């Protein structure tokens, strides 16, 4: 492919200019903005919901600001985009709990918040978020790294007409090891969460370093589960397949994925947290909490912190909980002013009745030490 006379130096020079071109292409829409005053604009990298007009429009008009939000459904992708140079682009990043303190702060991708200003908000949240909240703090417990809002248990979803909630909770992840379920379940495509799920089905904790035996077991389980599945797809596909009866349950899911169907009246679709399992302390479920942090952007917008305050207001927090896409509990429901905004149907959609016990049975989302290896195995298994 390359002329052998081409020196490595030449090659690097060429590559560098190509990289520059690529970078220029990628940040194109924002390229001119880098040096301009940025007090009237805000760029948010987030999970879907924060990019909705319901959430952003009131903020836009009150600040007469240009707010751009891009939604992704994948934490590592967002973080890698900051790593690849988009730290100059974004002002806020909204990802799951461990990334801020374990990855982004050490890599200087985000910067701490004014603790005096923001910590009081935690006091008004639900009890488990009482300050100092672990996932919002750095390792030393000194710096506040972000704000909590949406959260939820996320293990798997069943159609209670086919599999009772009790059976599902009792059997836990072993449900998927049952040969009788072959061809009757789906897998909600979700990178890291699929890896967690397969670890749990294989019977070990995803968040601990894994022995070669466990890795082998993971591969066997991944292949078996993929062979037995009926369908892999997105949330809409899963809910559609559950409602129509194509499948009885699906791996990777919870209030986040089932809530749109539940809000639509399909209360037989229910996120289930197993009573027990291979996770720390014998727990059976995994829960996620989003932490929104200020990006360490050299030209950061002053609107970033204002936005974080804006979404703490009861009305806005309620809007965030029921923004377009998926519906989720928010930490601000600890504030009666906020809680009273939720209707009975909305509480049913987000499984409020069992939220507390499900959270209690769940460990919190964490980083898998050998994630890349397990993900490669999982992706390869998809093909075979």
């Amino acid at each position: 492919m390359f002329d052998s006379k081409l020196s490595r130096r030449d090659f690097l020079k060429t590559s560098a200019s190509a990289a520059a071109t690529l970078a220029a292409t990628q940040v194109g829409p924002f390229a001119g903005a880098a040096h301009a005053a940025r007090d009237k604009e805000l760029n948010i990298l987030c999970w879907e919901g924060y990019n909705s007009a319901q959430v952003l429009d009131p903020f836009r008009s009150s600040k007469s600001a240009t707010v751009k939000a891009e939604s992704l459904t994948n934490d590592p992708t967002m973080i890698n985009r900051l790593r690849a140079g988009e730290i100059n682009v974004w002002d806020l990043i909204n990802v799951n709990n461990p990334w801020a303190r374990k990855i982004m702060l050490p890599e200087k991708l985000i910067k701490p918040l004014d603790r005096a200003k923001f910590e009081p908000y935690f006091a008004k949240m639900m009890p488990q978020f009482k300050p100092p909240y672990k996932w919002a703090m750095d390792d030393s417990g000194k710096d506040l790294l972000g704000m909590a809002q949406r959260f939820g248990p996320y293990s798997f979803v069943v159609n209670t007409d086919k599999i009772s909630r009790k059976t599902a909770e009792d059997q836990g992840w072993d449900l998927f090891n049952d040969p009788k379920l072959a061809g009757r379940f789906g897998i909600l495509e979700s990178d890291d969460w699929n890896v967690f799920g397969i670890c749990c089905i294989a019977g070990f904790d995803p968040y601990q370093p894994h022995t070669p035996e466990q890795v082998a077991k993971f591969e066997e389980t991944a292949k078996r589960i993929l062979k037995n599945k009926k369908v892999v797809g997105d949330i809409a596909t899963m809910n559609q397949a559950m409602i129509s009866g194509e499948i009885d349950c699906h791996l990777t899911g919870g209030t986040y994925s089932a809530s749109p169907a539940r809000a639509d009246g399909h209360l037989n679709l229910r996120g289930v947290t197993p009573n027990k399992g291979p996770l720390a302390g014998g727990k059976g479920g995994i829960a996620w909490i989003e932490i929104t942090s200020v990006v360490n952007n050299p030209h950061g917008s002053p609107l970033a912190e204002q936005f974080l305050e804006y979404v703490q207001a009861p009305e806005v927090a309620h809007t965030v909980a029921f923004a377009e896409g998926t519906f989720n509990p928010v930490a601000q429901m600890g504030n009666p002013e906020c809680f009273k905004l939720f209707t009975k149907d909305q509480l049913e959609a987000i499984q409020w009745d069992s939220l507390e016990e499900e959270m209690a049975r769940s460990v919190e989302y964490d980083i898998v030490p050998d994630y890349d290896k397990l993900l490669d195995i999982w992706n390869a298994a998809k093909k075979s």
Partner: protein
Amino acid sequence: MIEKTSVLAQPGRRAALPIMVLLALGFVAPLLAVVGFSFMPARTFGLWHEPTLENYETIFSDNTYVSLFWSLGLASATVVLLALICYPVAYGLVRVFGRWSTVLTLLFTIPLVVSENIRLYGWVLFFIKGGVLPGTLRTLFGVEMGDFLFTPAAVLFGMVYVYLPFMLFPMTLGIAMVPNQMREAARDLGATRWQVFREVELPLSTPGLMIGSLLTFVLAVGAIAEAKVLGGQRIIPITHDIEIAFTYAQNWPLGAALAVLLMLVVSVLVLIVLRRFDLDQILGKR
């Protein structure tokens, strides 16, 4: 003409300069970046590392061939099925349906304005358990429909459906290009309707068939939504592999290497076909 000053001396070249720059920036540069990335170490995000062949080694040592096989196989099957389905339809549009051709052409074209994904989700609702087709069959005839959705057959169905216009219209053009007198002459020389078709119309409309096949093949090799939506990811085509590498796996270099591999395979196949069937010769333009 006397002095050769520079390549830009000719007005034509000067006029073409803006579009050449645009093409270079918009088309060549990203392509070069992809090629460049394919030689970077796995899971890196810059082009300034020391080049390596490890991504290509990974591709050839793991089971990527499975997805490549699915992509090429499904694309080939799509082309064959489309050729069989579209030829009669195209023939009808040109020779049989008369005034209704316009209406039919419109019916084939209108769906193109709706996003492919939305149309595919429509088919999901059509085939899903209790959906339009199985529901109707059960209610009216008491027949239970076997599994179709989330099978490779459903993927093939989706691809045939999505790429149908891309085969149909070149084919229609190809058939329309066969002069009427050519068919009359063959008939006058004693050929039956079937012989006219086999000896004259079919060979003379091959350019349309070839262009349609190449177009659909290249598009179908790049198909991804059909396998995701209708196939429920029962199978993973190479394009999905590339997407996984670029997104979930966050392994841009591997994704780039897969993309380069796919480009090479498709280019080679297309070149072989083009060499085998000289379009100019078929069209008699030489």
